[in-house]
């Protein structure tokens, strides 16, 4: 193997983790600066087909290893195999995604090959033939440049920080098999079982939040079912509106929030409230639909990385904080927005 740049493809039972092609993108970017191509490494079940897939995404060669000892991810045999390959072929850079597996493998590999690890990196540069990485510290309040004196320079890339490589079925390269470096008897752990969960996203931890405000009930064209009094009809309309909010949240893998006005009016339970008296959140993306942006709501979400506002009122204070705004009716905008994102995210 002559490539200087290696990337580790993280997967679960043959399904490549969404970050896999971001790591490839980061690797290809480095290859442009350092020369040579990218070698992909895949271990475990279905690794052979994933290795072939990696070639389509831009790797000029790929290594896979698949046997009973590697069937379930366990850090010891995986790290041992990566270390043995690294010592054999001396790459200059090894990139991992910052996933639960990626981070610990990178860390352990660094110890095995007596080099350094630079985790959760958001930018990669090259200076004098060496990698200069940038990574957030103090919960992202500051950024740090990081370098490693020795080879290989081991990096884990932060999710969504690097361009995603695009596949081209016309690409080709070599796929080789590697043998495990540890016998089963030497491996100290066993995976007993997996419980795959698809739990809801908690508001406090969500990376994406879509919130609805009092404007959510404002759709006179909706006809409520018969027999509801004025207040109940209002709540029914609000629930239709919150369904749209929830759909958008779901397609983006996010959580649903609400302003105090919506909660006080009985449209949605208190646990969804974002603001001074609700939860203080700091997601990567906050979409405010039908929320005016009064100071007590802003107190709960102003540190969001990016704010998108949809409101009928062009003077609504929320627009001052928004990166993107639409002056319009959320009932008209949310459904096509959800559909557009659903298509583009391939969901």
């Amino acid at each position, binding site marked *: 193997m002559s490539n200087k740049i290696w990337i580790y493809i993280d997967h679960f039972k043959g399904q490549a983790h969404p970050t896999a092609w971001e790591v490839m993108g980061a690797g290809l970017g480095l290859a442009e600066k350092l020369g040579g191509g990218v070698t992909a490494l895949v271990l475990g079940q279905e690794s052979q087909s994933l290795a072939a897939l990696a070639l389509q995404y831009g790797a000029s060669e790929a290594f896979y290893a698949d046997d009973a000892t590697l069937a379930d991810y366990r850090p010891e045999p995986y790290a041992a195999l990566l270390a043995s390959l690294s010592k054999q072929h001396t790459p200059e850079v090894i990139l991992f995604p910052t996933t639960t597996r990626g981070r610990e493998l990178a860390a352990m590999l660094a110890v095995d090959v007596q080099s350094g690890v630079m985790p959760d990196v958001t930018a990669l540069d090259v200076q004098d033939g060496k990698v200069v990485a940038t990574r957030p510290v103090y919960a992202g309040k500051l950024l740090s440049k990081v370098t490693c004196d020795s080879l290989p320079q081991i990096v884990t890339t932060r999710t969504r920080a690097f361009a995603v490589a695009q596949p081209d079925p016309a690409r080709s390269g070599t796929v080789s098999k590697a043998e495990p470096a540890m016998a089963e008897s030497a491996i100290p752990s066993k995976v007993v079982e997996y419980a795959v969960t698809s739990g809801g996203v908690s508001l406090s931890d969500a990376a994406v939040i879509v919130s609805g405000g009092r404007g959510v009930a404002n759709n006179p064209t909706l006809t409520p079912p018969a027999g509801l009094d004025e207040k109940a009809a209002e709540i029914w309309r609000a629930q239709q509106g919150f369904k749209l909010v929830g759909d958008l949240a779901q397609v983006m893998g996010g959580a649903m929030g609400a302003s*105090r006005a919506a909660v006080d009016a009985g449209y949605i339970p208190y646990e969804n409230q974002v603001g001074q*008296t609700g939860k203080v959140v700091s997601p990567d993306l906050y979409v405010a639909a039908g929320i005016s942006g009064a*100071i*007590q709501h802003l107190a709960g979400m102003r540190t969001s990385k990016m704010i998108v506002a949809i409101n009928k009122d062009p003077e609504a204070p929320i627009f001052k904080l928004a990166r993107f705004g639409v002056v319009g009716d959320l009932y008209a905008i949310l459904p096509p927005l959800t559909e557009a994102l659903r298509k583009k995210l391939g969901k």
Partner: protein
Amino acid sequence: MDFALSEEHRMVQQMVRDFAQKEVAPIIKEQDRKQEMAAFILPRMGELGILGVCFPMRYGGQGMDYIALGLVCEELEAVDSSLRVVMSVHVGLNSMGLLQWGTEEQKQRLLAPQARGEKVACFGLTESGAGSDVAAIASTARWDGDVYILNGEKMWISLATKAHHALVVARTNLKAADPHEGLSAFLVDLSLPGVTTGDIHGKLGVRAGSTGWLAFQDVRVPVENRIGEEGEGFKIAMSCLDNGRYTVGAGAVGLIRASLEASVRYAHERKAFGREIGKFQLIQQKIARMVQSYEAGRLLYLRAGWMKNQGLRNTRETSLAKWFATDASFEAASEAIQVHGAYGYSDEYEVERYLRNSKGAIIYEGTSEIHQLMQAGYALGYREDAPLRCELPAYDAEFWQAE
């Protein structure tokens, strides 16, 4: 003179702050609106040892000193006065009274379960017709040769419906020449037949707390539960107030701090006329005054706590701390609302609750008026503290921490 808090004190302060912020702050607004004390609060404070913080371990306590008690009260009231009220009645008025005046047997039997948080304690002094005028107390405890027969009603009693024990002051000698000397104190088991209790709602503040009334109809109180001698009831009540007032003063300092912190936060957040309102001088004045009140109030209560630790009589110093801090906390809360503008007037923010809570403390545990009379009395030489038969024991780490 070392003004720094010890590492131990700082850790106590941090621990109680964490508890109050994490577990009570998120639900307090809702409880205040419902006018209900959250059910978990008393058991939780008991579990964490807060209800026995300054009592010797041999009496079920946590072995900390009286300064620690003050710090605990400051932290609790910074979240809500109702938490500190628990300390005022359970610890300050009732349990510390037992520590000061109880026999060894009474301390083991009555104080220890309270310090451990197994029994909740309250203080039954005030009646609908007797507040500042303690000598006008009408409840009676008639000795029938075997037990005391207790009759009467106590009002404005915090934790009335939650407590197991009440330290009740009642008249044992209707013929005493000086009505002050006809009073005696009793630790009454509220599960005795003849005891009824009820809640009082509709208070301006401390709505997340529990305030009520106690009614006694021919309640048979054993002589083993009389605290001190017959006729000592007034002196006992006054020394209980020395401890209750201390917790109120310390708590009010916490309330000033809460008003100050809320105002500073808002002054940075809110913009008007093109800049954050903290840049405007009249806002700055309000904040500067809160700082002054906070620091002065804090030194006053810490001094009182230090005197208690030393075993020095501190009626005057505690009264001064309570009067200063409670008046200042009302002013601070009022100004905090002003800083918040219209938002301060709504319960969207905490400051309106601070104002409503602060008013109560100016009334109970000695009205500000009473304290002014006391201070003038000391200064003019009209008033002097005579030594008591039983003084609050000085803090002795070895005694407090031996099991």
